């Protein structure tokens, strides 16, 4: 079937069943319903699926570990001839770190901020008496060099907050390599990173896994990423396997309906609109805005762009480029130090406290994290009803009707959702409630701050379609903040590219996506992973090995 033979089997999971404890029902409910998995030495397997599909749970189970609130109820996990389900806790612990390593999604949250990176790196080899501390440090520096971290001799002696996110993620990969494990589990290692940073981490991970012939389980929800990394891909849905095949076969010819739908997600595209030519004033016009946080350096430098009624303007850039700060200036949370924001030609007061109710009503926000954007202790009807009550003074029956109307608009059943609390909803449903709350104010302009980046692709597509439909029905203007260029391709009319607090390029989408580009736009565009399994290899050849990501400064 492929280049691996049965002799080299490293990990074999047979009919694995895992239960999770439900506090609501006070019983154990199955979350993994019989999954088989065979991993050979040196093989990289990609596990993909939506959130809740059980990817991370299987990843943890491969270490013989049941996460809090879960238990392995049935099946066998055999790692290199050792049965993990029956092994004692101390035996299993001896494997972890030395023979099986784990790389978490957020390196920033996984490193202890109180210790230097290299001290955390050498902990495992010293603990398992594989190397003496100094040898381990030497080895760490070599690994840093292989992972192309800048200043490999010195970087380990910094604290985690002193290096960038992408560097930290590579340092964590190096740490996983410290004992030369047979198996590494990567749990969404690049999900939290910018596209440009993602590339260097992907390249580093792929190289090091190749060099040491390490087997890996690569968990992600991003198909294009897994296409670059994996030899085989396994698709999961709700705790069950959908299908498994070698990467190329899986990409070219998926068998199951669900897999096909996953592959097709990025196909949503709506016609591009042009600016109105009859002299309509822009809804929002940002004019020469400079802004800084108290006492700090300038975060925004001479930012100007216009948003016309009924249009979607995508603001793209890496984290720290000033996208969200621009939104804060528009909403009045951060008064600009220079320049102004016009609403239909009239300047808006700089501070939100000075704005009238009507001015506040016109600019609504939808947030990235629906979890923190909705008060967990307030019922849905109140979350949505409050803006309607606050701005329009609706009461009693009229208010209830308005809430029902809004719930209908976002395609949620009013009867079912009217009295529920946010924690009872799924991520996509929460995001829809966030949209309804913005709509309840009847605004003309909505700021969407990374609204889809925390969602699964299928759910995200649903949200994008909803936003598009609402725009057509209600004539809304969107400012769409994102770092995901696929989203930009599908829904934007105009694109504003930001870097280091400046607008580097702006214009209609079709112009922006056809060459010639500004070099930074080019870097952003070429960094978006494509479904082609050879994309990363080709890209690295084009850019040159030492010239990836942040090294390629423009």
């Amino acid at each position: 079937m492929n280049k691996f033979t049965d002799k080299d089997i490293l990990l074999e999971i047979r009919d694995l069943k895992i239960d999770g404890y439900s506090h609501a029902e006070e019983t154990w409910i199955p979350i993994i319903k019989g999954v088989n998995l065979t991993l050979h030495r040196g093989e990289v397997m990609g596990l993909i699926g939506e959130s809740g599909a059980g990817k991370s749970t299987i990843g943890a189970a491969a270490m013989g570990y049941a996460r809090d609130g879960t238990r392995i109820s049935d099946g066998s996990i055999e790692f290199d001839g050792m049965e993990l389900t029956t092994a004692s806790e101390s035996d299993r612990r001896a494997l972890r770190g030395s023979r099986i390593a784990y790389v978490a999604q957020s390196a920033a949250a996984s490193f202890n901020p109180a210790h230097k990176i290299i001290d955390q790196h050498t902990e495992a080899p010293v603990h398992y008496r594989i190397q003496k501390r100094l040898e381990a440090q030497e080895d760490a520096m070599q690994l840093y060099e292989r992972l192309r971290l800048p200043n490999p001799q010195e970087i380990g002696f910094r604290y985690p907050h002193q290096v960038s996110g992408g560097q930290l993620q590579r340092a964590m990969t190096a740490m996983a390599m410290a004992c030369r494990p047979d198996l590494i589990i990567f749990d969404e290692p690049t999900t939290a990173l910018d596209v440009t940073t993602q590339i260097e981490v992907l390249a580093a991970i792929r190289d090091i896994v190749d060099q040491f012939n390490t087997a890996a389980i690569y968990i992600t929800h991003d198909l294009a990423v897994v296409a670059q990394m994996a030899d085989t891909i396994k698709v999961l849905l709700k705790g069950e396997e959908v299908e498994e095949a070698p990467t190329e076969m899986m990409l070219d010819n998926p068998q199951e309906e669900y897999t096909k739908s996953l592959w097709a997600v990025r196909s949503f595209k709506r016609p591009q609109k042009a600016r109105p030519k009859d002299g309509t004033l822009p809804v929002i016009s940002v004019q020469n805005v400079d802004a800084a946080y108290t006492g700090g350096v300038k975060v925004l430098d001479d930012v100007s762009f216009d948003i016309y009624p009924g249009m979607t303007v995508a603001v793209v850039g890496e984290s720290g480029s000033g996208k969200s700060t621009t939104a804060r200036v528009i909403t009045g949370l951060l008064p600009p130090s220079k320049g102004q924001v016009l609403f239909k030609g009239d300047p808006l007061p700089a501070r939100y406290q000075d704005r009238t109710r009507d001015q506040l009503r016109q600019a609504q926000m939808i947030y990235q994290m629906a979890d923190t954007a909705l008060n967990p202790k307030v019922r849905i009807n109140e979350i949505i009803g409050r803006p309607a009550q606050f701005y329009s003074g609706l009461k009693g029956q009229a208010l209830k009707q308005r809430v029902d109307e809004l719930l209908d608009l976002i395609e949620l059943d009013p009867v079912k959702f009217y009295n529920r609390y946010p924690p009872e909803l799924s991520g996509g449903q929460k995001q829809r409630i966030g949209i309804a709350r913005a709509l309840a104010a009847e605004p003309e302009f909505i700021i969407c701050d990374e609204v889809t980046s925390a969602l699964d692709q299928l759910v995200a597509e649903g949200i994008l379609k909803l936003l598009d439909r609402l725009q057509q029905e209600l004539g809304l203007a969107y400012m769409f903040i994102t770092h995901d260029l696929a989203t930009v391709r599908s829904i934007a009319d105009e694109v504003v590219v930001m870097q280091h607090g400046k607008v580097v390029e702006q214009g209609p989408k079709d112009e922006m996506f056809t060459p010639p580009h500004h070099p930074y736009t080019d870097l952003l565009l070429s960094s978006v992973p494509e479904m082609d399994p050879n994309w990363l290899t080709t890209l690295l050849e084009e850019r040159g090995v030492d010239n990836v990501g942040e090294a390629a400064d423009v």
Partner: protein
Amino acid sequence: MANFLTSGGFVVGYYAALIAASCIAAYYNNRKAFMLLFSLTLVSFVLGIVGGVPALRGVTIFAGLLALAAGTSYAFKEFLIQISSPGIAKELRTAPLTASFGMFIIFTYAIAGIFAPWIAPHGEAQVISDAFAPADENMLLGADQLGRDIFSRMVFGARNSVGLALLATLLAFFMGAFAGLMAAVKGGWFDQIMGRVADIIMSVPSLIFALLMLSIFGTNLAVIVVVVAVIYSPRVFRLTRAVAGNVVVMDYIEAAKLRGEGDWYLIRKEILPNSTAPLIAEFGLEFCFVFLLVAGLSFLGLGIQPPTADWGSMVRENATLISFGDMTPLIPAAAIALLTVSVNFVVDWMLFRSSGLKEM
């Protein structure tokens, strides 16, 4: 001889029961129970040699009391589960025995305090016999230094001491929590001023501060309540501000602010529902401190004034008896200790729940 036989029989029965229980525990593979019972057996050998039969009897009585308390707590918990609504009943089921024991004790004290005039056989200040008269069929615990019934005064004391402490804690809470929430929402100079005021109050030792204030303003109940509340409100302020500080950075607060909501709406609807759990736990803890401070003040003669019954002053009034080896002054002290421990049991459970440290 007969005495020897009964005590001999007791000792044999004692060991037989312990060993039988250990064997049963071992048979049913209950490792913890077995280890406990069998180590108790081994310890009892030493105890029996050193302390003789009385020591063994002491152990038996202690174990019996423990079992009684556990049984009462269990029954009380089941009772509460039966009478409460399904939502609360579900929470109650997670309560450990210590918590339900605490709830039982608090419940008992509340009954004693509320129905004091009907429960107490004699009046609070009624002199019915000689000073320091021993217990008889008329007086359950004997008489105090003026010939008043100690049991009646204990019952009334529950009303006065606990009621006063509760009042002071509530006041401390309203002041502290309100200031803390306002500081978190307003921020800036308001936050700074409130914080420094709290620092100043906290930097003065609480007992000395209370004594000073009480000697300036005189010792009436209102002054005691206000002084104690002022002393303890900074702790509440700091906790509330910290908890609310974590909530105000949430996006939903930003959304409400951008909507143009006022501070009062933010506090009432958005922040308070998300910070009640730690505040309730803190309430229990504060109550203990306040209670002890009030008792301490009474002991020093600056708290509740005679002839009003109060546990703190009862300890002081009967303190001379200690030199005669009489237990009487320790009874109100034990009542204070029992309540404090009980409240802490309940608070521990609440803290455990609100901290999210859920065991599987």
